[in-house]
């Protein structure tokens, strides 16, 4: 196989072992963690035969490998099973929750990049100036506030004191885009601020590296205007490592922003997973992780495919 399509195909093929590894590890791990769904349902009054009865009902009394085989078999047919907690099919559940998380993450990371890359570049250009120190300090402060604090403060100020945005709830974009935006405004702002902190530092560090490379000196020596040097030579090169980090950040966040979703009471993927782990809802945990892994792998594939666009050296090789 040759050409970009062959490359994509090969990469996709390599995601299969990753997904299988995730699937198997998760399958075994959730069952090794103490506690099981029957116990969580029955609580303090559980008698041994009640526990056994419920476990049998969910098919948890069989050997782990048999359970795994059955799950794989159904998975091959595109069936992720049903949730133990509420009997819902897992796949549509994942898709519905993913949309909530994705909307917030894409908006926030997009905004964060728009803020972080110019800020980082500027700070690097004016390294060690007052501006640089201000940018670095702000970025560091931003990324050192936990999201559950920042989120709550924004919620109290803009939701409660000023009453500009609703405090709880969620409206899908399909239903009403303006309302949807209003409901996810605060989580988006929270996430933007935090991720902008992370990305600014990365962008600044990369830009500093690039500014020291010979060809930048060369370009300057040639008498190119500073603006041109920055936009033509520094920005694309400095963006390459930042782009890798953006991929990592996106991949991580799309798997769920459990803390933010809890603070803002949003029905996203992260809360689904955390709730499922606490409830020992095995099919949901398995489905969530497989789905997250898939997204993660895909995002990184896309990031890698785009990489040559920013890094001329890799493109050449």
């Amino acid at each position, binding site marked *: 196989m040759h050409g970009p399509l062959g490359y994509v195909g090969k990469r996709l093929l390599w995601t299969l072992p990753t997904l299988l590894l*995730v699937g198997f590890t998760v399958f075994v791990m959730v069952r090794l963690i103490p506690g099981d769904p029957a116990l969580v349902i029955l609580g303090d009054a559980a008698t041994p035969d009640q526990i056994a009865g419920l476990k049998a009902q969910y098919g948890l009394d069989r050997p782990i490998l048999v359970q795994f085989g059955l799950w794989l078999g159904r998975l091959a047919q595109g069936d992720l099973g049903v949730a133990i907690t509420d009997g819902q099919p897992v796949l549509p559940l994942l898709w519905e929750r993913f949309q909530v998380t994705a909307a917030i993450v894409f908006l926030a990371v997009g905004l964060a990049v728009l803020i972080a890359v110019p800020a980082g570049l500027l700070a690097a250009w004016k390294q060690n100036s007052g501006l640089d120190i201000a940018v*670095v300090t702000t970025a560091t402060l931003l990324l050192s*506030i*936990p999201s559950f604090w920042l989120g709550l403060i924004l919620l109290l100020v803009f939701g409660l004191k000023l009453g500009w945005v609703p405090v709880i709830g969620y409206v899908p974009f399909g239903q009403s885009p303006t309302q949807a935006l209003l409901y996810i405004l605060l989580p988006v702002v929270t996430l933007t601020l935090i991720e902008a902190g992370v990305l600014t530092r990365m962008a600044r560090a990369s830009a500093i590296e690039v500014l020291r490379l010979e060809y930048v000196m060369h370009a300057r020596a040639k008498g190119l205007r500073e603006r041109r040097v920055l936009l033509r030579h520094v920005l694309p090169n400095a963006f390459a490592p930042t782009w890798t980090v953006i991929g*990592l950040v996106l991949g991580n966040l799309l798997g769920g922003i459990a*803390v933010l979703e809890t603070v803002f009471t949003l029905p996203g993927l992260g809360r689904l997973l955390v709730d499922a782990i606490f409830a020992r809802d095995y099919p949901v945990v398995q489905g969530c992780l497989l789905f997250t892994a898939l997204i993660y792998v895909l995002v990184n594939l896309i990031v890698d495919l785009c990489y040559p666009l920013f890094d001329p050296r890799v493109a050449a090789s």
Partner: protein
Amino acid sequence: MNRLGRLAALRANALIGGLLVGLVLAMAVVSVAWTPYGPLAINLRQRLKPPSAAYWLGTDEFGRDVLSRVMAGAATSLTVAVLTVVVAVAIGALLGLLAGYLRGLVDRLLMVVSDALLAFPGILLALGLMVIIGANKYGIIVALGLAYAPSVLRVVRATVLSVRERDYVEASRVIGNSEWTTMRRHVLPNCVAPIVVLATSMVGWVILAESALSFLGLGVPPPAATWGNMLSSGRPFIESAPWLGIAPGLCIALSMLGINLLGDALRDWLDPRMERG
């Protein structure tokens, strides 16, 4: 900027960073021998008191002295953070170098494992490892270390990939240096800067991740104080007793600022391309 000016600025960065980090370290060290009150000592008659002469940073919901807890928390938080980063960097850098340099099947397999790990949420990893290691700080260290290792791996691998084709690496090979020497002399030094940047950021991430785990009901088991679990347990009192969050929050922010400044200075100092005066 001329070389001297840059060096001066570098020194200033290092100085401020060093001061901040030194302050936090001093706090941690002193707390082992002395704190104004016992960090676990409760005083139910002095609950949720604002900062005063007796309690410089106020008291928490059990009447424990916040200053003492912040000091004791410095020790725990820093230990957890530094050990976690060490675990992550040790695993990630080694495997990243291997993956980036050897490429081929090794790279593929390592990426499979690293992607699998990255896709794994820290919370499940933490829960799982707590079963094996126990619900203590070592469980957290291993869990978070494993969770962050792939990030290091990826960054190192990317750097190696981009560096190994550069002219001077080629040149090193051409003049007959062994792969190992080439790697040590020319590839490894280039990885130091991104690792330092990432590692310093990670110290902060770990402190925050630990606090997020506390928020979700896991994390370093209290009553032992960490900045993270102090932040998360102070959250319900965000309006009535804001000092419960401000004290550990400021500590986190200042130590992160310090570590980052120091990290930047360190990077410049380590940078092979920067002439030293």
